């Protein structure tokens, strides 16, 4: 208790710094994957992708990031165990942030595939087991999170598969693909707008407007989302009108792909939004726990999620993207040039839909792995020239390495802070 009173200000400042560091790592690593598909299929230039990512990552983090943050903050650890020693939670969460951030930085430099979600979950579990005891971890919750890492790529793959099949049936495999593309693509756009608004209204806004008493019923949310979806589709139709036919010398489907490129602008926005809502929590969840503990001097009562914390996370992601993420994006964009817009859209929407739904339930999932699952789904629908199945192995490796690495680093930092302040 006295420790918190004594060093409260320092803890707050450190929490902000470490939270920013972690968010920077998310922006540098993960966002590039989320946006790489759009860049690779030439639907967006790198510059456009970065601007979209900045705006929509920010919105996603701020408007819909609350639920996942709660899970990271309270779901993994049983706070009751720490009631007498709140400072341990502060050390632990600082250690987790620093550990995950350090691990991400090292991995970026060495070029290893890592998942921000896995590293933060590993770090929190690590400090809890080492610093407090096996019982401090809510193993049921951790199990659910781990299961969702397997389930989410499968779900995304299924959605992407079905989306792409629908594109084949309705558009590509018809007498007049171009006319059908112009007819059906706005429907997909409506779907994007509806999905995003729905999750935001149902799950996100309660964290933003907690105090103002602003509430919508489920039906009201549906109506408003449908309205937003229609607006989005309308804007899409306007953009489609601007299209100029290109020469079809290379492929009879060149003009059709152009229509999908417009659609991909929308799915890219949704991908960034989904990513912001899911992954920003990795950085701000522990931060929120520290802030709440310092402010109240105890763990327990459900602390409100201050808007400014989400803001810090969102800013950190944008900085990460601006300083380092664009380089990663360029690399990935070059690697996946034969992902055409009609495929990329299905993959992105499948992944974004899955992530957004998961954010709604508060489960932290790995955006990158979800996207990989979605791409495989499109591949199963015979939509991609060649996919490298060895990657699945490397992803499993990244899980196996990232979890203990995050945990170990967290334990080291935890004891360091404990020795420093107590």
């Amino acid at each position, binding site marked *: 208790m006295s420790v918190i009173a004594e060093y409260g200000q320092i803890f707050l400042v450190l929490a902000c710094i470490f939270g920013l560091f972690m968010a920077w790592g998310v922006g540098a*690593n993960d966002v*590039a*994957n989320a946006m*790489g598909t759009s860049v*690779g299929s030439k639907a967006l230039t790198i510059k456009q992708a970065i601007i979209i990512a900045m705006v929509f990552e920010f919105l996603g983090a701020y408007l819909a990031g609350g639920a996942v943050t709660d899970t990271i903050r309270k779901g993994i650890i049983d706070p009751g165990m720490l009631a007498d020693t709140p400072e341990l939670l502060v050390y632990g969460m600082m250690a987790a942030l620093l550990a995950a951030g350090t691990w991400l930085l090292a991995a*970026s430099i060495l*070029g*290893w*595939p890592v998942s921000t979600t896995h590293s933060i979950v590993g770090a929190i579990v690590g400090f809890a087991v080492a610093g407090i005891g096996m019982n401090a971890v809510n193993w049921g919750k951790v199990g659910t999170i781990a299961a969702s890492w397997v389930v989410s790529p499968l779900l995304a793959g299924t959605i992407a598969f079905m989306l*792409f099949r629908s594109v*084949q049936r309705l558009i*590509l*495999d*018809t*007498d007049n693909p171009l006319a059908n593309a112009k007819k059906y693509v706005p429907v997909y756009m409506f779907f994007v707008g509806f999905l995003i608004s729905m999750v935001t209204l149902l799950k996100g806004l309660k964290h933003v407007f907690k105090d103002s008493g602003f509430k919508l019923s489920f039906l009201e949310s549906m109506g408003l989302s449908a309205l937003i979806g229609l607006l989005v589709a309308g804007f899409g139709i306007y953009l489609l009108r601007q299209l100029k036919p290109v020469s079809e010398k290379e*492929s*009879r*489907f060149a003009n059709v792909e152009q229509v999908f490129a417009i659609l991909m602008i929308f799915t890219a926005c949704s991908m960034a939004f989904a990513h912001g809502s899911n992954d920003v929590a990795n950085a701000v969840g522990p931060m929120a726990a520290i802030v709440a503990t310092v402010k109240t001097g105890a763990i327990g009562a459900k602390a409100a999620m201050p808007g400014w914390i989400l803001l810090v996370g969102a800013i950190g992601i944008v900085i990460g993207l601006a300083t380092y993420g664009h*380089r*990663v994006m360029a*690399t*990935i964009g070059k*690697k*996946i040039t*034969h*992902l*055409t817009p*009609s495929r990329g859209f299905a993959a992105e929407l499948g992944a974004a839909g899955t992530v957004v739904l998961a954010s709604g339930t508060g489960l932290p999932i790995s955006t*990158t*792995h979800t*996207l*990989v699952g979605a*791409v*495989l789904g499109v*591949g199963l*629908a*015979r*939509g*991609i*020239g*060649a*996919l*490298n*199945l*060895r*990657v699945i192995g*490397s*992803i499993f490796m*990244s899980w196996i390495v990232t979890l203990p690495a995050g945990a170990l680093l967290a334990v080291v930092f935890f004891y360091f802070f404990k020795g420093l302040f107590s």
Partner: protein
Amino acid sequence: MPSANPFAILFGKSPIKPMQEHMAVVAEAAGLLTPFFEAVIANDWAQADKVQQQIHGLENKADSLKKDLRLHLPKSLFLPVPRSDLLELLAGQDRIANRAKDIAGIMLGRKMKLPKALGDQMLAFVQAAVTTVEQSLKAINELDELLETGFAGRELDIVETMIGELDRLENQADEMEVAIRASLFELEAEMPPVDVMFLYKVIDWVGDVADRAQKVGSRLELLLAR
């Protein structure tokens, strides 16, 4: 830079475009048989030598494209069509260029003269074989559209129609082959026997070019059959 980024290495090199590039080179090599025979008939051996060099160069290029593509098709790749069928198709394409090289090589090496009476008939026959190869190139060039529709539906019908036309052209070349053999049979008594032997061989090989072009079509059909 994240070289091991799972997303960056998820996408393999698509074999579709390289397949088409390979076939384009093969068709170019086979297409040169027409100027080659024109030079032979005109008794212009310097020109024949030049064209033979070009055919040889193109055949080499096709070979290296083939090797390159094979290296990029490891077993771990997940392809929309069976890998074995794709490799069979590639080998089939390559055989066309090989045969074109054989024809030019043996005729230049032996300085084979065609009997005057056979000249026009032979040229028409070679042209028929080349047309067959061009038709098979057309079918192979549909591969990227096929990928676009997921190897299904209407695009399949388009390719089927092309392969039907390919079969028709090959039949035509076959009939010309029978006719030209009959013409040669009439003349063979007045010609040196060894020359006649080799001329039969060349006729056989020109027929092979058309035949192998047709086989590319059948292999493409196998690739698409589910």
